[in-house]
């Protein structure tokens, strides 16, 4: 007989018969009590650690928007030209270092979509000869020349500048501010590039471009004190170009880590001299922040408290589960 037909009998394997060895967890109180307890205790531990760390971080924040007659810089709010004002503060004890010096803007939406896309990464990568991309509009061209750097972000760059003095015996002692390495290293060394210098001149490299409308100085002349800190690689520019996630944000301005101030700001009186250029009074506020940072970054007590609360909740939950377990578990079931 030739009826050795191919049988269509399905394969009898564990997989095709859906009999793979399986672990079937039935979640019940008895099993999860230790888990809850463990998580609870761990969280409480982490929470305490975070909270203590957070408390050890000092923050000194001073608003200098200038609205309201008594506040600092009130003189500058209405002036259209560049204006100087002073902000005085005193420290009763050593502000331990290294101290980070931030400026903060509030109700400032750097994350508005159209604002956020208004830049040209290729231009910032050093290619100033090409016409900037359309997202930069309307800050693409000015006087029929390419704007470098183009776009709304660059155009609205924060341009207040600060000088910090310690008052020692009624004389102003300049506190050295370190502006190196305040930007992300990736921005400085990879994402941003200056156009190739022509005969050693950065200005010539930017030939054929104009400065953004709101800027006072062209991009190759941002930091007259340090020729290396110019063009697209200017640290303040890099910091500004990394758009903030939330409407109330800080941006690192300088670090205080040199000279007499390596260990921090000693107790005493200080004066911050502000060159007030940036108008925010219409919609928000601006401030300066001095803070020292720990491993967890700036001071934030939320995470520590949250961990503590959750930890306690888990412990309570394990208690509840214990009661449930005692009441409803029929013997011999949890095998």
């Amino acid at each position, binding site marked *: 007989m030739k009826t050795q037909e191919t049988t269509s009998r399905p394969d009898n394997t564990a997989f095709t018969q859906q009999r793979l060895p399986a672990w079937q967890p039935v979640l019940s109180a008895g099993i999860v009590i230790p888990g809850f307890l463990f998580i609870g205790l761990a969280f409480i531990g982490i929470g305490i650690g975070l909270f203590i760390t957070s408390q050890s971080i000092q923050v000194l924040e001073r608003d200098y928007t200038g609205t309201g007659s008594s506040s600092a810089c009130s003189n500058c709010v209405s002036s259209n030209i560049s204006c100087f004002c002073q902000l005085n503060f005193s420290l009763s004890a050593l502000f331990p270092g290294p101290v980070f010096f931030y400026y903060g803007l509030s109700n400032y939406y750097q*994350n508005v979509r159209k*604002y956020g*896309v208004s830049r040209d990464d290729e231009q910032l990568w050093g290619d100033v000869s090409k016409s900037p991309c359309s997202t930069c509009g309307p800050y693409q061209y000015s006087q029929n020349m390419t704007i470098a750097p183009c776009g709304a972000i660059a155009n609205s760059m924060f341009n207040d500048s600060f000088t910090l003095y310690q008052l020692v015996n009624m004389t102003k002692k300049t506190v050295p501010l370190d502006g190196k390495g305040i930007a992300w290293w990736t921005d400085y060394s990879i994402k941003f590039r200056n156009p190739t210098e022509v005969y050693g001149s950065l200005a010539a490299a930017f030939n054929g471009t104009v400065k953004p409308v709101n800027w006072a100085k062209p991009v190759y002349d941002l930091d007259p004190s340090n020729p290396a800190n110019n063009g697209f690689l200017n640290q303040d520019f890099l910091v500004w170009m990394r758009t903030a996630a939330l409407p109330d944000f800080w941006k690192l301005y300088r670090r205080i880590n040199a000279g007499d101030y390596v260990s921090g700001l000693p107790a005493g009186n200080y004066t911050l001299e502000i060159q007030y250029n940036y108008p925010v009074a219409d*919609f928000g506020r601006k401030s300066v922040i001095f803070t020292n940072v720990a491993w*967890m970054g700036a001071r934030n007590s*939320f995470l520590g408290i949250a961990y503590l609360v959750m930890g306690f909740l888990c412990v309570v939950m394990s208690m509840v589960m214990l009661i*449930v377990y005692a009441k409803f578990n029929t013997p011999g079931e949890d095998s």
Partner: protein
Amino acid sequence: MHPMEVWNHIRQVWRRKTDKENTVRRLVSNLPFEDFQRKYQPNRQYVDNSIKTTKYTVWSFIPMNLFEQFHRFANVYFVSIAVLNFVPIVNAFEPGVALIPICVILALTAIKDAWEDFRRYQADKQLNNMPCFIYSRKEKKFVSKCWKDVRVGDFVKVLCNEVIPADILLLHTSDPNGVCFIETANLDGETNLKQRQIVRGFAAPSSSFEPEHFDSIIYCEKPNDKLNHFKGYLDKADKKIGFGKDNLLLRGCTVRNTDEAAGIVVYAGHDTKAMLNNNGPRYKRSKLERKMNMDVLLCVALLFFMCFIGGLGHFIWLKTFPSIPPFVPPDSNNKYISDSLSGFYMFFTMIILLQVLIPISLYVSIELMKVGQIFFITNDTDLYDKETNKQVQCRALNITEDLGQIKYIFSDKTGTLTENKMVFRRCTIMGTEYCHKENALRLGVQCEAVSDDEDTVFQKSKVPSRLQHRPKRDITCLRRSQSTRSYSTARRFVEMAPSTNNEVAFSSPLETDVAPDKRLLHIMCEEKSEIQQWCRVSHSQGAASYMDFFLALAICNTVVVSTAMLPRQRVHSSTLKPGGRLQSLLRKMGSLGHKISSRQSVSESSPKSSSFLKKVKEEEVEEYSDSGSGNPSRRGSESSHQSEQEWSPGPDPDGLCYEAESPDEAALVYAAKAYGFSLLARAPDHVTVGLPQGTMLKFEVLDTLAFDSTRKRMSVVVRHPITNAIIIYTKGADTTIMELLNNQGENQEEEKKRKKIASKTQRHLDLYAKDGLRTLCIAKKVLSEEAYEDWASVRREAESAIDNRDELLMETAVHLETNLTLLGATGIEDRLQDDVPGTIAALREAGIQVWVLTGDKKETAVNIAYSCRLLSQGDVVFTLNTNSREECESILDCTLEEVRRYATAPQTRWSFLSIVGVATPAENTGPTFGLVIEGRTLSMVFEAHLEMKLLELARHCHSVLCCRVTPLQKSTVVKLVRDKLKVMTLAIGDGANDVNMIQTADIGIGISGQEGMQAVMASDFAISHFKHLKKLLLVHGHWCYSRLASMVVYFFYKNVMYVNLLFWYQFFCGFSGTAMIDYWLLIFFNLFFTSTPPIMFGIMDKDISAETLLGLPELYKMGQNSEYYKRAGFWTVMLDAFYQSLVCFFIPYWTYQDSDIDIFTFGTPMNTVSLFAILLHLAIEIKSWTVVHLGIMVGSILLFFIMCLAYSALCIDCNPPSNPYWIMEEQMSDPMFYLVCILSIIVALLPRYTIRVLKGTLALSPLVQARKLDKLPPVDREQQIKKWKSQQSRPEAPANLVSPVDSVSSPSEPNIYSISVEGETPDMYWDSKDETEKPFTPGHRRSISTMTI
């Protein structure tokens, strides 16, 4: 292309068009036109034989496939959103990027479609290039060509075991009688041989076949899809010769038992009946999917609401600024648009940003899941049938989850609940009952073996492991699959050797072997001499009736005789060899058979006379049949002795095998054979019957009036070879035959006798029906030569008519079948399939109502219902049987009132007390009801618009039985229940009469059994046994539904949760449409990171093991009530999604508040947290973890980190607005990142986890209880299941387990209300309390032979 060709082509198309308008196809032979250009070909307008089932060509694929895909609403939606993104004023992302997801989805679907189409293309190519023989005028012989070269009008020769390439009008065969056998298995699955014959009278039969001389014009009907319908005529110079379906060889069939056949092609390629019948897979939309689409719309509403908030928020936000701040840039023209307008634009930007809320991957994922689910269903070895070598076939690809939600099952009876393997059980001849005790005993033994097996299924708890259980089962399977083909020891079924030949239907020894009734055998032997006499002189009296009876059984049918020595083999297309070894083998065998029969006829030509007994016979028989139960020993013992010895069946029948279109016919022929009347050969114009003494009679068949459902009978007109009398044998349903009897005898005595016989036979028939036997009446009529000639001329006219031939033929048939003489009646048993009662009981427990819709008579149906435990002994059964509307209404009202009095709303509730150990008291102590309704009453109900009342009544009834219903009524009933009760319905059936209902129901299941493939073709799933329904529904249905439902809910959760992260951020970016997550990562998140785990879950998760699901059918109710996917559940999940997204957004938010964090650094922990939350959420939902689950979970997480790290490391400025470079690396080196992630994940999942734990501990739902059972070792689990069942069971449940024999013995109260206005005899039987009238049960069946009448 040459312009002439183009013109030709256009003309062809035009011709084809005009051709369509005609009603007749006219064609001539191609041979005179051979080698002519195409334009001169006479049959050029007809399509050729090459087929193309592909949807697309290489060029048309992309446009056509896209066009098809855009029929989907979802695809249009996503494309329009992508297009919206190209509008500069509202775009949210880089326009090209937005196209990626929809392109990926479209591409995936396109690849799937292309692959399917390519497979079709390959199959077409293979088919088109199959070899065949076409006649060539040049070479004067048949030459080998390909199938695709065959054209209409060609002459084609087909050899034995070859597949027929086109629809061919048969003109010549190698058979001297001009017949040809074909097997139509490819077309309709019927494995029996069918006889086709050449067109008569077109050429002298003796002359050799000369295609070149064929000069007739053929007229036939347009191509149509009716397999059993074909007519036309040959226009030969002088006369018209009609032909019909018996002359047509259909494409796809196989020629058998015939050396060669040749004919002219009438339909080719796509015009053939086979191709016209070939519809692709069916598409239904499942209930779950319908519901899901509703929820998708809800999501759309939610999306629009969120976008509206976005637009409004943007407007308000802009209004808060007294002057325009520097961070709101003007448009490129340096102009500021008004706040309200930008709010309006923002609405659309938001749609683009939040589009993922509508799960784009949902549809593709669901399709993939269903493919996986179908893979597992078809691969289940439990649903594989060894006998037929068939798995489950899933023909509809997208309604697997509906299997888990069925509430009503509508089942056919014959072939579905029963085996449709007919067993000859009893007969009555001339008013005398022969109960075939031996046969019953023999079958009884077998039954026991089977029922033993059933018992083990019932008490499966004893045998914990399936493996232990299986071998036992296989033994029975083997025993049942034996075939007569082995024929080693035909009469002793016990010793039969196992055989693997399981192809032939109706041939298991159990069915074909009939042990003759001793008493009848006795009579037969005693009257042997008379038989011989009868051979010479025509009798119409007494003992000759017995002969007539058996002759009628042997002749009056369409059974084809084939030789058992020649096993047919299925020929695969690849192994086709024209005229191979097999053929010579065939020839040898044929001559061998010849020798045997001639030798036998010689040996039998000296009959031993026993004429001395002959005298007394007549009165004795009379008396005997009157007394009925009279003792046969009254007759001379010597004669009985003698006869026993003498008795030997005539020509050795063991070489014969019968192939019948309906199993009843085969059963009758086998019965006749058991008494020595064996059908030896059948040709179109004669049949040869072997008589008990060995003589062979060759009857000339003058005409065959085929069976049809309106006449409900068939007849053959034969000429007796010796007496030359023309005799009509008729066989048919008792109702019709009884009406046609001629009870007017020549004298009064005769008349009285005939009436007596008729009434006795009627009584026996009623009894047979009560025992669940199928009854047939046999009658005969002798016709005078003149009368026949008159009739025959009318008949011939009718045959050659073209237009209303069918009506005319029917008329002539009715005209002939009058004034019949009753010979007797037969009772054929249709045995229940394996494990039907168990399956029905399980389905019942699962909360499924089972209705049986059958065309059978009430008594048969009710008995089957009892034996398969659809009705139980304690049930109160209402029978609705009326012919008038008013009565129908009043009866319905009365019954409803009656029922309502008892109805105490029996609802078993899940109670967690049961797990604590307190048994819930049995709530329902009232009686259970059954409803039996007749077809005509049903039509009354529909006419009088009483459907709602009927449904109301039916809902109170435990089981409903509709008998004598037409196929249309079947589907009307299904539609009624489906539409009015809004429930999921399933229809299961095996025959062509079930097709309507199978197509109407939400799920149609075809049983690929005995009766062809129509039901299977129309079905969504095809199984081979009714018992497979249990696992298919209770296990696979439950799994498919629970998996898919959980997954759909999960998909909604996933998308809402993820999209809301973006939405919350809008509150902090001035509703400006900023995303804090890089858009590539956004896309990847849905496409890669979180897509595979849910798909795998949807395919593989098992909430409860198969054993527990089968053990506790109640668990099926979860699916019926849609517990996994309810509106409430949907909103709970939505809330959970909102909560989780709030957590995932605000914990990072508060952490990074007041810091110098940039947008994308801020988004990274959120993305990570939501990934973990989404995957761990799934992990909580997964009920059983296998290696695959673990692998895919871990793989997804790893993929996320690898992709993110790689992307941040390599992408310096690829996606301009975002700034992904080195962000992930930066974050991962920051301890805060981990602290934020851990806290957020735990806070997000804690509520869901806690609720799961509480649910698991309190175990309120049976699902959790069942899962706990699953964890027990098998033995304990069985015990627990038993305990559970005894707690939950309602009073009738244990009744199913009690041996039914016990309950039979005490039918103390008449619990069957028969509401029958006509009040005829059948109901009388039901109400009587006679011992013998008890309903038929398996236990009863064994003792039935002792029954006396």
